[in-house]
Each structure stands twice: as C-alpha cells, then as structure tokens.
C-alpha cells in the first residue's frame, strides 16, 4: 500500500538570500558565521535553527533566524522576505515519491533524490520547490495562490497511487 499524508506547516519566516558578487568571500564569511558551508545546487545545509536550501545558482532559500546573515552578505548580496507568498507543505509516508510522479516531470523516484536534496519542478502546472527531509518525507514550497489547487490535486491523486 502506497500511503502519503499531505499537511500544511504553519507560516514561518522564509527569506531569499542572494549573492551578486564576491561569492567566494561571502561563502567564507558564511562558514565562519554559521559553522556550515553554503550548500551546493540541489542540496540543503544547516540545522533546525537555520537552514539554507539551494534551488538557484545565486539564490538560497533561508528558513529560520537570519540575524547573522546581513553581516555575512555585507555589500555583496541581499536578503528579501518572501514567506507570505509561499505555503510550506509536507508529504509524508512511503508514497511521497509516487505521489510526486502524478502530474509531474521530475524523477522523484530516483534513489539519488535522497534526504538533503532539493529540486524545483512543475507539477500539474504549478511551480513547486521540493526538499527531501527524510526517506519518509518530502517538503514542498508552493506559491500561495496555487496552493489550494495543488492541495486538491494531491488529495485526489493520493487516492489513486496503487496500480
């Protein structure tokens, strides 16, 4: 039985961390300030207090406390709040990979797409950013205005995963 539960997580701060220049120095300052490296494309890094997920070449999605990051960026980048426009959903249970194949185009069934991996893709016409939390759960960051439509699509699709 392929099961999956779809839940919406409470609103929490979410920022865009963008670097426009001197990337190597920013990376160095970041490591010094946070104790972990800026994650590579398609990966996340950090801890429960501060997590960065990279979906774009020069942009990281930041969850948690950003107070240290302003100094890290200095004049080489900017932080911008975006939490209002994003709904944070969690797909949990053994069926999450199959669910993501419904209406999708990205290989979420690949074993290489494991905990700590991130990918942005399109599912049922909606731009979705995925972050694998564990073998058993994957987070999805969904544009607010489309979240109702996608949630409905996923609820329907979750009922037909078998076969």
């Amino acid at each position, binding site marked *: 039985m392929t099961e999956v539960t779809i839940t919406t997580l409470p609103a929490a701060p979410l920022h865009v961390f*963008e670097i426009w220049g001197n990337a190597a120095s920013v990376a160095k300052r970041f490591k010094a300030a946070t104790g972990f490296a800026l994650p590579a494309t398609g990966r996340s890094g950090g801890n429960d207090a501060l997590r960065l997920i990279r979906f774009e070449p020069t942009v990281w999605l930041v969850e948690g406390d950003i107070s240290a990051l302003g100094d890290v960026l200095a004049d080489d980048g900017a932080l911008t709040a975006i939490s*209002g426009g994003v709904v944070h959903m969690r797909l949990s249970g053994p069926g999450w990979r199959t669910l993501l194949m*419904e209406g999708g185009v990205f290989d979420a069934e690949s074993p290489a797409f494991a905990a700590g991996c991130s990918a942005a893709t399109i599912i049922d016409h909606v731009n979705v950013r995925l972050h694998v939390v564990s073998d058993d759960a994957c987070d999805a960051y969904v544009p607010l205005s489309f979240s109702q439509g996608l949630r409905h699509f996923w609820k329907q699709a979750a009922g037909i995963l078998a076969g």
Partner: protein
Amino acid sequence: MITFSFDGKAYTAQEGDTLAAALLRNGIGLVGRSFKYHRPRGIMTAGVEEPNALVTVGEGGRAEPNTRATDVFVYDGLVARSQNRWPNLSFDVGSVLGLAAPALSAGFYYKTFFGSAKKWMFYEYFIRKAAGLGNAPTQADPDRFSHRAAFCDVLVVGAGPAGLQAALDAAEAGKRVILVEQDNILGASLIRDPQELDAAWIEATAARIRGAGGRILTRTTASGYWEHDLVTLTQRLSEPGQTPANGVAQRLWHVRAGQVILANGSIERPMAFAHNDRPGVMLSQALRSYVRRFGVVPGKRLVIATNNDDAYKTAQALKDAGAQIVAILDARPAPAGANSGHRVYNDAVPLSTKGARHCLKSVSALVDGKTMEWDADLLAVSGGFTPVVHLHMQAGGTLDWNEDAQAFIPASSRQNVTTIGGAADPQPIFKMVPVSSPNKSFIDFQNDVTLADVDLAWAEGYRSVEHLKRYTTLGMATDQGKLSNMAALGRLAEKQGVAIPEAGLTTFRPPYTPVTMGLIAGAGAKDAGAHVRRLALYDLHAAKNPIWQPLGYWFRPRAYPINGESLAQAALREAKAVRNNVGMTDVSTLAKFEVSGPDAAAFLEIICATTVSQLAVGRGRYTFMLREDGFVFDDGTVWRLDENRYLLTSSTGGADRMATHISYVRQYLCPHLRVSAVNVQEHYAGIAIAGPTAKAVLATLIGEEPPRHMSTVPAVIAGIPVIILAASYSGERAFEIYITASDAATVWAACEGQVMKVGGALYGLEAMEFLRIEKGHLVVGGEVDGRMTPHDLALDKMLNKAGGYIGASGLARPALSEAGRRQLVGLEALEGDIPEGSMLIPSEGASPQGHVSAAAFRIIEGGSVALGQLVDGFSRHGEILIASSPTRGQKARVRVVAPHFYDSAGERYRD
C-alpha cells in the same frame, strides 16, 4: 459466469474473453457496417489492427464509440451496440449506397455538388449524417484520468518471447526496467503458439523481472515516441465502459527512458481479392488465437489462403479443434506445403468469395491458371507480415527493405532505440500479385478503399503516396492503415513500375493506436489545465458573497452587492462611497518586485522609461515600461523604501511577463550589476483605502500622521508591521497597505472595522473601473493595448531624457511619430450611453477612426463618459463623433474631450 449484451440481447462469455471472442463464441459473425458503403462486416483480426468489428461499449458518459471488439475484455454487465446502421445491423438501409458504389469512386465528391456554398451545405448535411461511425456520448465523463511520469534505464515494449527476455536481462543487470504489454496477459505470440515456451516460462520470467525491481504494465500501449527518448504509454485501468475501481479509468505515462527496446512483433496482412471483406474472412493468426487462446472455433469448413509457412500452424490448430480443412491455397509453387498433411493447392491465388445472410458460403481461386471453388464458412488469409515499425519511425528512424519478407524493417535511428524479435526479422513470404477484379478488392476495409480506387487516383495524377492517401482516404480510418498501407504501396509500385521502396512511404505519427481524449487531457479536463489562483484574503471576501470577476487565472471581487443590488447598483454605491467618504479594496494581485543593492536605481532606469534615481528615500512615483520595440507594455509605481531598496509595482495581468522581463534584463543583459530583484507579488497582500476620509481612517489605524501623496512609510496596524504607500488610482486621497500575506487577514479586519465605523464601504473592480475612468487613469489591456507609444498615451513628457531605458531604440522608428496615429482621448456623451468597445466613426457608414477602450458614468453627476483611442485625437478635442456598436445595436453621439473628467488639477490628493 459473465453476461454481456450486444444490440440489446444478452449473452454469456468466459473469463478472459475479448468481446470479439465472446461474440464468435455466441455465433455472431456480423458485427458492424463499413464507413462508406455500409457493407456488412465481421471480425477480421484478434488485435488492435481490427478495421471492421467496431462497436460502442458502455453507456451514458462512459460510452466509448468505435471500440474495437478485439480490444476490449468482457466484464460482467458490458453493454455493446453496433454502429453506423439503421434500422438495425442485419438490415441496414444505408447499404443501398453499395449499389451506387460505381459512382462513388475515390474523390467523387470533388467532382460534383457545385453551386453556392449554401447548396453544398445542403448536400453536406446528408453526407455528414451518413458519415461518422458511432455516436459520441452527450454527457460528461464521470471518470478521471491520471498522468504519471516515470524514468527508467530500459523500456521494453512488447512482452512476447523477445521482449520478456530483454526485460529480464536488463533487470537482472541491475537496470531500472519498465516492460509494457498492450494485452492483458503476457506472452504475445506465445499465447497462440505455446509449443516452444509455455505459460510457465512466461510466469517465471515475469516473476524474475519483478523480483529484480522491474515494473511490468499490462493493458498498456506505447502510443507515442517523442524527443529524447520520451515515450507515452496509455494504460487501461478499466475496460471501455466499465466503472473503474478507484474512479480512474486510464493512466497516461510519460516515460523518459535511457534506452528503448521495441519488441512489437508484426501484423499479418490480408490479401486483396473480390469480396475479401465478408464476415467469415479472417486473418490466419487471428483465427489461430481464437482457437488456441479462447477455445472458440468460429466455423466448421475452413479454407486457408497463404503465401507463407505460418498459416499451416493455423491449419493444424483448427484441425486439432475438430474443424475441416477444406483447402489450403498456397501462392507458392510446389513443393510448398507438400508435407503438411493437408489438401494444398500450389500457385493458388484467391479470386472471390460468395456469401448468404452475411455468412461466408464459398471461396474461389485461380489455381495454376484454372478457376476453382470450394464451399466454406471460414476463410483464413495470410498475405505476409508487416513489422510494427511505428514507434521506431516516430522516433525519427529509417527503414530497410527486406525482400524475402516483402517488408520494411527498422534500420538506424537518431534516438536510443533498438528493435528486436519478429519486427526486426519477419518471416519470408512469396511475393504475389492480385488477380481478381480490383473493384470489390478491399485494401482499406473500414473506409471502403479498393484497388480500383488506387488505380483511379493514379490515373488522375494523384501519384505521390501522400496524394493517394488523401485522395482515396486510404489509411485514414480508426485502424490508421495498419492493414492497408503495404497493399496500397504495392499497387502504387506496380503502377509506377518500380520496387516498393522507391514508391515512397507515408510518415508514421503518434499515436500508434487511438488515444482517449479524456486521457490526453488528464486532470486538466475539469479546469482546462488552469488552476484558479486564490487570493490570500479569499475567505474574507467569500464570506461577503461578492460577484467575482476572472482576471487571468485570478478571481477578484467585482462588487459586494447588499440588499439584492444589481452589479451596477452595487458598483455605483461603492464608487460613491469612495468619492464622498472612504472605501477599501483588495489590490493583492498587483505585480510587486523588491529591488535591492547599490545598483538598484540604475537597474530600474533600464526597466522603467521614467527616471527613478532622483527619488528621495520615502518617496514614490508613477512609472511605465516599454517593450524593446518602443510600445508601452505596462505601468505602475516605484518607491524608494530605503537607501538601496526599492519596491516596483506593475499590473496584475502583466505580472508574469514583467517577472520574466526583469529576470532577463538582470541575468542576461546586466549580470554585472550589484542588484537583487525579487518577485514579491504573493508575499505582500495589498489593501487600498481611498476617499476624502481615508487619511483620517488610516491615521486612526496607524496611530500617526499618514504619509503625504506619493510618499511611503513603514507602520504597524493591529500589531502587524505594514508598508504604507500613499498612491491613488481612484483620484481620491488614497493609501495602499502592504502586509505579509499570512498576516493580511488581521490587518484587513482592522481596516474594515475602521472603514465601516465611519460609514465607508468595500469596493470591487467595477467601482474601481468607474473611478479610474472618470479620473482618466490608464489600464493595461485597455488603453495600454500594446500598440500605443508613450506619446500616443500622453506620457511622453515623463520619458527619461537621458535615455538608456529599454525601448528607446524602438521608439525612434519613423512610423512611431508619424501623423495619423491613434491617440488617447476622453469622450463624453451628448446623446445615449457610450458602449464600451464601440467604434468611433465620423458618420454612419464610415470606416472607424478609433474605438472606445473603457466606458463608465460620472459617479456623482451622472452622464456617460469614456476613454478611447482616436486617429490624431489630441488635435480633435471638441469634435462630435458617433460611438457605434452595430453588434449590440447601440450608439451614442460623443464629444471628444481631454481624458480627465474629475479633478484634473489633482487637488484632491492634497491635504
């Protein structure tokens, strides 16, 4: 026991029967009528290539017309009906068309039915009624369809012996494997010929594939081979007409494969001879399938016509089942078939058949120059084998000609695909030429195309294979030419006096077999593939039961009627509240970009055609953007929130386009700039408060003096931090409040409380339209229609004199400043209400000189006013024109005026 019905009569079937097998089991030979001549037709094949036995299966919104009886497995309660006949299948009035067949030759309709187009429509009415096959359902489909992606290293198409082995090898080599089979059981040719590898081998192999992690999909057809090894599979989760177990009738798979192995096998060819379409004439392998797989023997006295060895297996199968093998007509010279133990006639080519009451009675043939005839109720034909090369060709492959098999086989491909098994190595056959009269020698059975039609097309100059196909309709039926194409090519080659490969080949395009439209649409059939975009404040609006207005994918409140008001009444009340007191509205959908960095102003002066850099911190301005060709494509406001941080707003409808434009300019044209431009359209919900008392309302809400017009401050409302922009679209003193969307409901409630307390109102898009038209503000998609220059819209004085903005070059083109351009004007009615969208004409009957882009009523004084575009409009103020809408039978006499009907001096913005 399974029961089903055909044309209203109940029958029983056995588990695993196709509908064709079940019909034959019940002695039903007549199943359908052909397309053009309504000739009686039976079951010819046992597969997806079936041209004749088409029925409608299912009822209501689940009814599937034109279902091949050979491609539906009977379930309890299946309802099937015959098609294209009236009043019934055995007595069909339409069959009189057969008598007229000599006149209805290929292309006959091109040569007659002249006269006016109306006259053709008269004839066409009857032609349309006679054409078509089944009836489409008239109800909506109750079931759903799923789309699913899959990725694999190896996709194997066809689960015959070759396909099963290939899938097993790949799976056990550790590859991700998908094996698909269009049948509902595995084995393909092994099912009718189990001598070498039996059911146990099939079962064991399948188990090993699954055990190695392979995925096996039955009842699944690889129907399209697209770019870069993407293959679409159509999977039936329920049979046609059947109520699906979990509501999903079919699934469409988009499979991206590392490698594709095609093990499609081949399709047996019929032979061309007179009356070769009669019920009782079947393909040899198909007949063998009915006997061996289903245990159905649909006749007692069998004649076989063949040009190859394979048909002898059919003779054996029928003999084993107790039928009499009357004769085997082998086109090959002796000693072919000599040791078969059957009565074999060599150098034998079929001539014709006779029948009675839609059954076969006898078969005649030319044997070594002499005509012979046999009584028979069943004729099995085998004209050779056509490898299924469809997917290989869809993938962009080439073909080789195999002379021994008289068949095209797959050669090279630019994609990663190989063909194995029977399709790569078809059985040898003897090349034969039809000897029968071409007139009733059918090659495309469903569309009633005969050899004579091919000959006629040739004589009339339709000689390329594509012309032939189009002129005769050959290959255009629901079987897509699977049985007919080789026969037609053969005839064409004969006419041209060349070998078949030189005669040409039609293209192979998806789908391999017809695909249900609902499946192609998937979940999108319900919402046109366009999710509604829901406002952050949706619940608050919905509670007030507003009239909604679609705007792109958004739905926004158009008006909030109370006490049974009409839209117009509600909108007018709301607009009056704004003019007289205060109103509030949801402006969340506006495009918004937060632009940060030392180069933010420089970047914005590339995007915007106005200046930006002079703005002081805390100030904002109106701005507009040009396309590269110099025309205005959007407008909005730009605000300096901080030393190096700006907020840019632009239109809702242009939001996605603007987001891409900004990204293009930043990433592609200006990668060196120190700037971050983030789309915050959905991050911020927006509330506009407008009206003479708006300032007082806001002061109460934020507990401080609100900013002056075109200024911005951060503030706090109900404990929530907000950004206040003092901007006005309505023409009144007004403020836009931006809040993180997840906190917007709290702020909305606080604002609403205060607005209502002073007797204000909520207002929707309709009132906003009234307000902005009266004020003479532009709207993107209305006045800004993508064909207007800044000058046409009287915006040219705001252009950045320093240039450097996108569109400056385009604007320099000569025609953008020539006389005769359409220019923005105001219009006020002298007589009648001005119809929105109407044409501006100087007098009745004259050609339009402009149009009305938006119309409304003066909110306080009444009277119809409008904005429009008019040729040389700036110099025509005072002229009287007609705003005419012939499609609505409305018109108004209008005077051309300046496009400002309200407070043109802007005094109401001042405190």
